[in-house]
């Protein structure tokens, strides 16, 4: 029995850092590879400076079926044998470790820059040369009539910056490489400054469409480290806000998908209904994206009785207005034929690479943090997990349609049965030398924040994993074999975060 299994780590339950196993690097590799082989997921793998010139690698392993987390670690110098060749889930994490910590995963099959920045988690006695932010070795396909299409970082629409490099034969895409990092703002270092108020504001700005999700994970980790009391009312208000965020984004994305297949009626109606969800968040928190609501210790704004009644009415009306629009969208044959069979991800690919959220659920993988690692209100009120099987644009859209209906039912029910008590309590100081993992099912999938404190109870390491970190690979795998003109549609069906990936 490997030592990491008995750690007692769960979503939002902190453990002492000294309980975290430190294994020799070979044993560490075996532990992680073995656990992933048994069906666990690598929820996070990251480096933390240890002593003057060493780096501690920490892996967080999620057992979705058992609702438990495992963690193990090893201490390395400036290189270690890579896991990615045998464990593709480690692919992105190891590129990140190379870039952040200046530690080379030897034998990594695709060791390219991830975000293109100087190492910002180097041990104090180590030096590394500045990163070359321009040079990037793109994969190329050579051959007669094979051509390359480069898109971005400045796109045609109002979109975040990223670069897409297609290798194509006529309209047919052979390969897609996605180069990101344009939105890199140095988020993790900012979270490690030791100023809690500012950290929560930074967490709210990791991905501006996932304010509630990231603030919830950040505060969840801080509360676990502080052993903060949780009030049922505060947890419920947060849960309602999380589902409103999901509603707004799913509605907006279905509208955008409708727009991309030139079905403008649904695009217009859904665009407005998205706004109605944002306006509900604004009524609650004073901001259309819910900024200012989720704070350590609970929710900074309570839902008054009259507000709850009004919100319920508005959500019920929204449901009534929405039904005919969704029927229109999904039952129009010309729309269906544009969504079906496009941009498919396989179930095996999801398992191998560790994709999360609606991308995995559209491949019949019922991964959902609300169900697998429930926290707060989701421990008591269950939202059924929505799955489809085809893994294509249509399946992802249908998953979102189901989730819209279930989130609507959830919010309406919870607003009618708000627990009594305070919405927020004092969070208190963080315990020293501990590790906490907080996970949230954001609308794109699993958000992970890992926070480790030092001997004074200050934040020593704050690791952020946005669902997009995993799922950008899914897009890169889904597009080859499709027409290049279907790329916008594929892209929209994932709608991944550049900012969340780039941090």
């Amino acid at each position: 029995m490997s030592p990491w299994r008995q750690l007692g780590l769960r979503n939002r339950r902190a453990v002492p850092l000294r309980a975290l196993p430190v294994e020799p690097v070979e044993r560490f590799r075996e532990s992680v590879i073995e656990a992933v082989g048994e069906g666990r997921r690598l929820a996070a793998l990251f480096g933390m400076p240890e002593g003057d010139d060493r780096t501690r690698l920490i892996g967080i392993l999620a057992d979705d079926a058992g609702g438990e987390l495992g963690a193990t670690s090893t201490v390395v110098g400036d290189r270690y044998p890579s896991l990615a060749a045998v464990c593709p889930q480690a692919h992105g994490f190891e590129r990140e470790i190379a870039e952040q910590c200046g530690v080379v995963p030897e034998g990594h099959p695709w060791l390219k820059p991830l975000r293109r920045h100087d190492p910002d988690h180097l041990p104090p006695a180590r030096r590394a040369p500045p990163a070359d932010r321009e040079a990037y070795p793109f994969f190329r396909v050579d051959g007669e009539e094979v051509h390359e299409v480069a898109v971005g970082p400045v796109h045609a629409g109002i979109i975040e910056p990223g670069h897409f490099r297609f290798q194509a034969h006529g309209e047919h895409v052979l390969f897609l490489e996605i180069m990101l990092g344009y939105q890199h703002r140095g988020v993790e270092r900012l979270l490690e400054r030791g100023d809690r108020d500012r950290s929560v504001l930074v967490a709210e700005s990791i991905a501006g469409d996932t304010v509630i999700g990231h603030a919830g994970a950040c505060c969840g980790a801080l509360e676990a480290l502080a052993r903060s009391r949780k009030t049922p009312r505060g947890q419920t208000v947060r849960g309602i806000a999380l589902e409103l965020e999901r509603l707004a984004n799913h509605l907006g994305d279905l509208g955008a998908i409708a727009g991309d297949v030139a079905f403008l009626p649904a695009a217009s109606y859904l665009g407005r209904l998205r706004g109605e969800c944002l306006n509900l968040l604004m009524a609650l928190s004073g901001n259309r994206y819910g900024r200012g609501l989720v704070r350590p210790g609970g929710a900074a704004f309570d839902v008054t009785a009259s507000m709850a009644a009004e919100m319920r009415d508005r959500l019920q009306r929204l449901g009534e207005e929405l039904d005919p629009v969704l029927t229109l969208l999904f039952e129009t044959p010309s729309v269906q034929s544009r969504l079906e069979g496009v941009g498919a991800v396989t179930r095996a690919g999801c398992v191998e690479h560790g994709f999360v959220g609606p991308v995995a659920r559209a491949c019949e993988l019922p991964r959902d943090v609300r169900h697998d690692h429930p926290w707060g209100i989701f421990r008591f009120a269950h939202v059924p997990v929505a799955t489809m099987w085809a893994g294509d644009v249509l399946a992802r859209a249908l998953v979102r349609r189901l989730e819209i209906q279930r989130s609507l039912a959830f919010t309406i029910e919870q607003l009618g049965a708000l627990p009594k008590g305070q919405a927020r309590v004092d969070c208190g100081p963080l315990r020293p030398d501990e590790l906490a993992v907080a996970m949230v099912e954001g609308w794109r999938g699993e958000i992970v924040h890992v926070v480790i404190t030092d001997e004074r109870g200050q934040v020593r390491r704050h690791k952020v994993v946005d669902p997009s970190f995993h799922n950008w690979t899914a897009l890169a795998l889904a597009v080859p074999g499709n027409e290049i003109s279907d790329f916008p549609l594929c892209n929209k069906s994932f709608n991944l975060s550049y900012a969340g990936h780039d941090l």
Partner: protein
Amino acid sequence: MLDWIRARWQQGIRTSGFPRDGVDLPDRFRGRPVRDPARCADGCRSCGGRAPSALLTAGTDGSVAVDVGACLFSPDEAAACPEGAITYGRDHRMAARTREGLRSPTGEVELARALEARTRALFRRSLRLRSVAAGSCNGCEAELVALGNVVFDLARFGIQFVASPRHADGLVVTGAVSRNMRSALERTWEAVPPPKIVIAVGACAITGGPFAGSPEVADGVGAILPVDLWVPGCPPHPLTTLDGLLRLLGTIEGDGRGPGALAAPPRHG
């Protein structure tokens, strides 16, 4: 087809009456911050170091100024003052032509005046803009997209986001300008034919926002491009941005409320 018509009928007309009609924002909406000097005496440092943004700045003489451009519109910034001197009003109007126009002792903003007559004559009654996100969180971009929905319907004012900088009259820049986006931003700017304008949207584009001080960002677009309109917010409400854009075009003047606020359409000879 009948279903389409029925859905169209059910949805009705949803475009807001802005700017002719008033603005209806909820009670908790956090608009322009207001400082009460009576509760925040010059030289008082009780919020010192606790405010999570550079909302309050102290002059060399000890006088305190409110920088609406640095405001993240969070409840924490107001709560940092134990005297309760900082509150959020419900005023959505706060776009200014100059950076200085966002600073004042009480949070007043020198609301944007119209572009110079010659530029406006060239642009006619339209404005074509290219959006560049440069080290943002996607919040401001999401609100720019929302400006195009049927409620705000930006296009009815002759304003449109275009696909190429070569088709644009100017740039809308969001984000703190990350090191990795700087050259792309500069090249996009060079591709816009003159006369051209820059609109900085959101706290990040103005001061770096929550990312200010990070070695990976430039703390805003002001140090890189000449800015013609500053739109505070985190992110700015679509009406804040719309108000600023319409002031730039001279469509809104004065307090921007009620029918009298609409300026006569500019004449072209």
